[in-house]
């Protein structure tokens, strides 16, 4: 009987306690916020980013889209043209801010407000080339997320 009681106590200690702890963690994290999800492919809309960019510094930018890679608040953006360096930056309070450096100097920057709605389906902002005085406004829409692999086949 004593052995049985000891086993129950041990079970409670090694299983019950972690389960209680898990409940506590889930409760503690319920209001935890994380950065807006902006990873994936974004298609430029309504503004001719490529033409404007080419006029500005003579190097082409991918005409239709940009691919954002996200790790928490950190962002990396490929503009799809080998001549353009990738942009690195972050997303904070719904604003994406990215810069591209070449030989230590900033050559390109992007700042955009992300649509706060569910799925963050759109963003609007400006692209700025160091070689150019003006800013190129853009509006981009997010391509729907890919389906899980289990559904692909």
């Amino acid at each position, binding site marked *: 009987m004593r*052995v049985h009681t000891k*086993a129950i106590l*041990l*079970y409670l*200690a*090694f*299983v019950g306690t*972690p*389960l209680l*702890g*898990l409940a506590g*963690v*889930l409760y*503690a*994290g*319920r209001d*935890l*916020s*994380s*950065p*807006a*999800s*902006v*990873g994936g492919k974004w298609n430029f809309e309504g503004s001719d980013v490529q033409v404007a960019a080419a006029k500005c510094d003579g190097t082409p930018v991918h005409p239709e889209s940009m691919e954002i*890679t*996200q*790790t*928490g*608040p950190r962002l990396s953006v490929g503009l799809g043209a080998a001549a353009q360096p990738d942009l690195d930056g972050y997303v904070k309070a719904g604003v994406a801010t990215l810069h591209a450096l070449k030989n230590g100097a900033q050559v390109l920057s992007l700042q955009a407000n992300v649509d706060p709605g569910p799925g963050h389906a759109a963003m609007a902002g400006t692209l700025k080339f160091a070689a150019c005085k003006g800013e190129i406004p853009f509006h981009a829409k997010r391509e729907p*997320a890919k*389906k*899980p*692999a*289990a*559904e*692909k*086949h």
Partner: protein
Amino acid sequence: MMQVATLLLQIVVILAAIRLFGAVCRAVHQPQVVGEMVAGIMLGPSVLGALSPRLSAFLFPADSMGLLNGVSQFGLVLFLYSVGLEHDLRSLKGHGETAVISSHASIFVPFFLGALLALFLYPRLSDDGITFVHFALFMGIAMSITAFPVLARILEEKSLVNTPVGATAIVCAAVDDVTGWCIVAAILFVVHANKPAFPVWAIAPLTIVYAVLVLYAGPRLLRPLASRCQSTQGLKHSELAWAMLFLFASAYATEKLGIHPLFGAFLAGIATPRDFGFSKAVAKRLEDLTVVLLLPMFFAYSGLKTHLGLLNGAEMWMYFVAIVVVAVIGKLGGAAFAARSTGMTWRESTALGALVNTRGLVELVVLNIGLDNNIISPPLFAMMVLMAIVTTIMTVPLIDWIYPPHARTPTPVPAPS
């Protein structure tokens, strides 16, 4: 036709890499699976892609990934079925309190610590595309995994099967496996990422009804096959075909339920009758094709998704170290302290903890589910894959150090059949 030619070339390259790295690992007394996981990473963007982007793009063009994924998923369905076939739920009955407490502790202690770590990682490595609860539950289960197949092989290789530590470890791993897959299914139900054909409220009861039905009716339906297998003294094609039909129907059913086809495959394996050595005969027949040909495709596909270059900067490596520390403390520490408190010696308890700390291939399967369902990000996926490799590599040296042959209990305990 081009895609088929590409796939055939990919198979050649993948098998060569897997054999090469597997041989290297065996030479240094590491499980073959470590070499296979490393080979996958070598073929991916982390090594081949970085060294020769053109060769990488030629061997693994983006439009060929669908076919390779299909083959690798097919292999996983067969593999999880084989894992289910290796389990005998009857063998879990009658095990002492050490096995029960240690196995459950080795699930729930790392589960809690994984969720605790999620409090720190969620704002740093995740985004609001996934809720904290889903993220924390997934981190918990990813920390709790034990690779039953790898563990069984290590126990065999180290002649540990008939020691108290080996017998307890195999029960712990079996319980971990069954519980782990149920929790993964539950998390996928909560995340509801697969957009099932049924309303959300119906999935949980339907899954439970389905699992009970398969576990109850499956053995009864398939028992005639088992007896026919005995009377003809071998597994014939027709019996194997019926077993395959049962497997794929079960995988399809759980996929349609919105859980995951691998859960259905695992269930089908458990429900396949053990009578007259039927399950063993089926497992034996499938093992060669699965292990030698199909699983390498999964290793390669996983490696192609593992981008170690994303771990740029000291901060990312600090997260990785935190993940490894939490994983080891939770799994090894949880099982060891629980076993020690039930009366095992410190040496045996620590050896048990070291054994169940093996994550191997099963961890890789779970991580891929997390990545495919957007629960974890690619950098976190890369960190967790590395963690799985590190914890698997640790096992053999730790066992050799903690539990050498001369320290083993001279009175062997029969292993569960």
